[in-house]
Every structure is written in structure tokens, then in C-alpha cells.
């Protein structure tokens, strides 16, 4: 009972902050609402007993990605003076399309048999060590792990190269 109330509160907070993210006038406010939405998602991860991902969500998304977004907002501030409409002209088309998608997806999933399922048994606390050994196990998930690290390396090198200020370069 109390879990349901808590879930509804957190879900409503997250959805409302998400709505503010996409409709805020000032871009900085949108970035801060994004932080709140990401935090709400982290709390939901903790609800679902995925404690590792709750903490990683705060660490990666809020601690790194949100700060990166805020930096980008501050570095490109001169032009978008937060005046005038923030949405493009045809925004009501997008709204209708998105609403249709929402209803359609819910209806399509509603016919599935497991839609009303209750939660299964709780996860084993030793799952974390199991994840660690699985990520480097060659028969399991070592390949996705290595590919992810190569992706991060490529993103790192690419971002540095793109954003580097070339003095006297192409203008």
C-alpha cells in the first residue's frame, strides 16, 4: 500500500519534470529539470531493487552528463536568448503523433499475457559479484564489455578533436 503511494508520487514527479524539460522557456531551467527527472529515474531503479544501477545512474547521468549539458548550455548562451517561442511551428502535430504513439503502445502491450504480472522473487544480493565476473567471462559478456570500452574511446577522441579550438584554422 505504502509502496504504491510512493511509486505514484515518484512517477508523477518524474513525469512532471520531464514535461518541464521539454517545455521550459529558459534552457538552463530545462537542464535543471532534467537533473530532477534523472534523479527520479534513479529512485525508481532503487525501487526495482537494482541498487547498482541506481547509483550508477546518479554517478554517470547526473554527475557527468547533466553537467556536460549545463556546460554546453552556458557556452552557447549568447544566441538563444530564451526569448520567443521555444517550440517549432508544427508542435501540435508532434503532440498528436506522440499521443497516438502512447495510446497505441499501451493498447498493443495490453493484449500481452504478462501485462498484469506481479513481481517475481527478489534478486540475490550476490548478483553484483556475479555481474562482475560475467562481464569479463569470455563465454558471457566480455565482448560487449570490450566493444563498449572501444566505443567510449572513440567518443573520447572524437569529442576532443571536434571541440578543440584550432587556432588560426578553418574559419
Amino acid at each position: 500500500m505504502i509502496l504504491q503511494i510512493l511509486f505514484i508520487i515518484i512517477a508523477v514527479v518524474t513525469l512532471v519534470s520531464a514535461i518541464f524539460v521539454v517545455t521550459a522557456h529558459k534552457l538552463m531551467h530545462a537542464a535543471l529539470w532534467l537533473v530532477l527527472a534523472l534523479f527520479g529515474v534513479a529512485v525508481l531503479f532503487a525501487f526495482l531493487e537494482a541498487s547498482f544501477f541506481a547509483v550508477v545512474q546518479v554517478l554517470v547521468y547526473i554527475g557527468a552528463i547533466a553537467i556536460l549539458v549545463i556546460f554546453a548550455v552556458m557556452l552557447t548562451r549568447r544566441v538563444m536568448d530564451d526569448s520567443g517561442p521555444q517550440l517549432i511551428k508544427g508542435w501540435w502535430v508532434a503532440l498528436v503523433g506522440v499521443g497516438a504513439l502512447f495510446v497505441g503502445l499501451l493498447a498493443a502491450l495490453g493484449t500481452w499475457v504478462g501485462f498484469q504480472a506481479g513481481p517475481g522473487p527478489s534478486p540475490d544480493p550476490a548478483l553484483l559479484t556475479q555481474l562482475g565476473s560475467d562481464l569479463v567471462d569470455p563465454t558471457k559478456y566480455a565482448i560487449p564489455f570490450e566493444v563498449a570500452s572501444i566505443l567510449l574511446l572513440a567518443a573520447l577522441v572524437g569529442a576532443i578533436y571536434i571541440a578543440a579550438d584550432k587556432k588560426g584554422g578553418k574559419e
Partner: protein
Amino acid sequence: MPNFWSDPFGFLIQWFNNLLLGWGLPGGTVQFIAYVVGAFILVAGSLFFCLLLIWAERKIGGRVQDRLGPNRVGPFGLVQAVADMLKIFTKEFVTPDGVDKVVYNLAPIMSVAAVILLWAVIPFTITFYGNDLNVGVLYLVAVGGLADLSIVMAGWSSNNKFALLGAFRAVAQLISYEVPLVISLLLPVMLSGSMKLNEIVRAQDVPFIVTAPIAAAIFFISSIAENGRAPFDLMEAESEIVAGFNVEYSGLKFGFFFVGDFLHAFTIAMLFSVLFLGGWRGPGADQIPILGFVYMMIKTSIMYFLGLLVRFSLPRFRIDQMMNINWKMLTPIALGAVMATAFVDKATANVLATTTPVLGVILRTLILLVTNGMVLWVASDLMGSVLTRKERRVVALEARPVARPEPPAAPIEPTEGEVS
């Protein structure tokens, strides 16, 4: 029912639970209320303890700088912090025009919250801790990352170019120093096999400062940089950018930043003693939990004192020196130490398992110590050339534009009849 003298915290918790159950509340609600009250007491206790910390800092700082600290208000100046507190409470909140009200007021709150949240996972005794999270070490890093957000919010909402500049530099410093912090935190996790802080304390038969000295040193340095204390106090360099990101804050809001700063310094000392010095371990701490609390406070005070000595002795770093230290020195050494320790630990685990437990522990300690020494030796060898490379241009040999001498100015002739 634990004995009051050997475990006062446990006794009080048990007594409170029994009281609430006696009033007829269901078990789940009792637990929830106990959590809320416990959290409240922990937060209030830490904030009140901050008064003592401020006094200690000013006294010790004064002695290091060859002067007495505060000694007028109360015996030995103990009440000075209370006087400061009263002054800050009664100051007016000067809010400049054009600030973003919500963000402006939220920033100091988040700054203090990010520090107090760290206290939730620290084991004070063998039985007294907030919550032994499965991912305790990762939680420490994640919550520490919330402090950067509060600085960005403070700097941006102040509607002040200097504050924004200060916030930029501060966040650059903070997110850079998170990298060696996280890498050096991997070593206690590896050596103890778990991310729970209580398990890490339990696994320290030999304190980790002996088996992983490089990680201890890097953790200490990175934590000081994360906190923003000297020699890394570029964030609030009073002589350079007039108090940096908190220039527009006055009264209690500035007091919040201040309290957050000091509390963070103490929290770093506590974390260091938990992760590397053995926390509440000591002779007799298993049976008598209150002794564990005493040991923990002694170790924390030693590390806090060390931090204060560092603060009052070293001059401030420039921002490029700081970035150099981080990316060219701390991160490679941390990575090297992690790799070497992992390799050596796994390679010798089978061999050490065949010896007796005591001999096994001693041998493992010695082997890891030797490994750390070798990593340091290799690192200093390789990086000596990189760090001392002269990067200054040779100015004297460049062709500089020569100033053309001006033609001599015509002498000013006094006009006739204006002789005064």
C-alpha cells in the same frame, strides 16, 4: 538488549524501538519512524559537531601561523564558533537583482546535502551505521558528484560574470579530480572483495594503508582537491576572483557553503580512516562496540589534523599546474597501481592459500608493498622527463617588433604676455 555501557547507540535504538512498539504501532511504521529520527539525529549531530571543527581549525591554523587562535570568547575560544554562528544567522540576505530565485536558494542547500548524505554509509562502530549499502563505495563517489552541480547552480544563478567564471573553474577542477578518486577507490574494493564499507573495515587485518599506500596517497590528494581546500582552493581564491562562485551569497546561505566545506573536510578524514586505516578496528572493538567509536574518532582526528597541516603549509596551485598534476601524475599512477595490484594479487593467491593464515597475511602485505614500491619507481622514472619539460618559449631569440623612436617633441614656447 545490548548493554548500555558497551554499546550505547545500540541500547538507545533498541529502547526507542521498544517504546514505539509499546505504543501499539505496527512494525513497519516503527522501523520507518526509527529511520527518520535516526537520520535527523545524525544530521543534527554532524552539523553541531561542525562548530567544534571550526574552532579546531582556527586554533590549529593560528598555531601553525605562529599566532594564537581565537581565545577571547569562552575558555580557549571554544565559544567563538557559536558567536560566529549567531552573527551569520542575524545577517541580512542580500539578494542581487536578476538572480534566479529558486536556483539561487537551492544551491547552498544542495551543497550541504551532498556532504551530509555521505554520512549515511559510514560505519561508526560494528553495529552502528546508517545503512550498509551493497554498493557503498560507489554511493560515496556518486553523492560526491552532486557537489559539482550545486557549484554550477550557484555560479550561474548569481547573474555575475565573476561568479560564473569561478564556477567554471571549480567544476573543471572537481570533475577532473573525480577520476583518480574513483580509480584509487578500486584498490580497497579489490583487496577486500566487496563494496560494502563494513566489509572493507572487517577485511583490514592489516590496514590498507600498508598494503596499498599509493591508493591511500592518491585518495587523500584527490579528496583534498574535491573538497576545494588549499593547496587546491582555486575555487574560492580570495585574492584572485573575490570568493569565486559564492560571491553573491551573504548571511546564512554563505554559512551553508562554509559549513559544507568544513564538514566535507572532516568527512574525508572519516572516509580515509574507514577505507585505509581500519575504521573502528582496534583491540577489543569487536566485543565492546563503543571502543570502536573511540578508535574511529582517534584515527579521524589524526587524518583531519594532517589535512589541516597541509592546508596551512602549502601555497595555492595555478589551474594549469592543477590539471597537470591530475592528468599527468595522479591518473597514470593510479591506473598503474590498480593494474599491478590486480595482477600480483591474483598471481599469488593460489600460492598464499597453501600457507598458514597469519603467514599468508604477512606475505601478502609484503608482496603488495613491494609491488607498490615498484610502481612508484617506474612512474617516477617515466614521468620525471614529462613533468619537468620546459614549456616556456624562449623569448629572447625571437624577432620582436622594435619601437620606433618618436621624433623629439617641439618645445612649447610661452606666448607673449602670459608670463605669470
